[in-house]
């Protein structure tokens, strides 16, 4: 079970945010193209930072608490998923707030 340590955190984040899709009908997953166009360009510099930090020992991941699957630059799979799931949760959060506070401007309303 130990190796699911990091994955548990990611699961928690998915569970904690994706329910908004069902309950508040925010339709973020239905707009997956826009979501990925927002997530990936931001994730790339953060992953470069991650690779640099790992290579230089600024931080490290416990090999016993991750699945042991590594992507490019010796970054664990969980870390790649982090930069997809956490930003997705952020988008769902702002859309969730918007759906509750309909009068609050966001900046992408039709004019």
């Amino acid at each position, binding site marked *: 079970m130990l190796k699911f*340590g*990091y994955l*548990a*955190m990611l699961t*928690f*984040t998915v569970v*904690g945010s994706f329910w908004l899709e069902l309950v508040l009908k925010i*339709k973020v997953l239905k*707009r997956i*193209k*826009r*979501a990925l*166009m*927002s*997530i990936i*360009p*931001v994730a790339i510099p*953060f992953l470069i*930072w991650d690779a640099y*930090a790992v290579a*230089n*020992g*600024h*931080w*490290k*991941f*416990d090999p016993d*608490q*991750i699945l042991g699957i590594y992507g490019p630059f010796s970054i664990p799979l969980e870390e790649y998923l982090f*930069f997809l799931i*956490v*930003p997705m*949760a*952020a*988008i769902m*959060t*702002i859309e*969730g*707030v*918007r759906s509750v*506070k309909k009068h*609050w*401007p*966001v*900046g*992408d309303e*039709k004019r």
Partner: protein
Amino acid sequence: MIYSDIAIVGVIFAVFFDLYGVKTALLSKSVFWTSYAIIVPFQLITNWWLTSRGIVTYSPDAIIGTRIAGAPIEDLLFGFALVLSTMSLWVYWGRKGIQPKN
């Protein structure tokens, strides 16, 4: 302190991106700060999980050493930059007509 330095640069970049890059000005909007206020407690919980169990460990040389809920304070800067940049880009694409809600 290198994590601190990069994290501060990340925040500065995210702020400029929002205000002057894509000009979404989320920093001036209630919808952003309310969303961020919701996100921070969850970040503290997940950070605590990752750091208290030693899933992620930080070199003492890379951080200033101030910790919140077990995690380096730099993580809050990192999270802020990540969340603000992504939301700004999301709003930017919406403004450009990419998959608006209806």
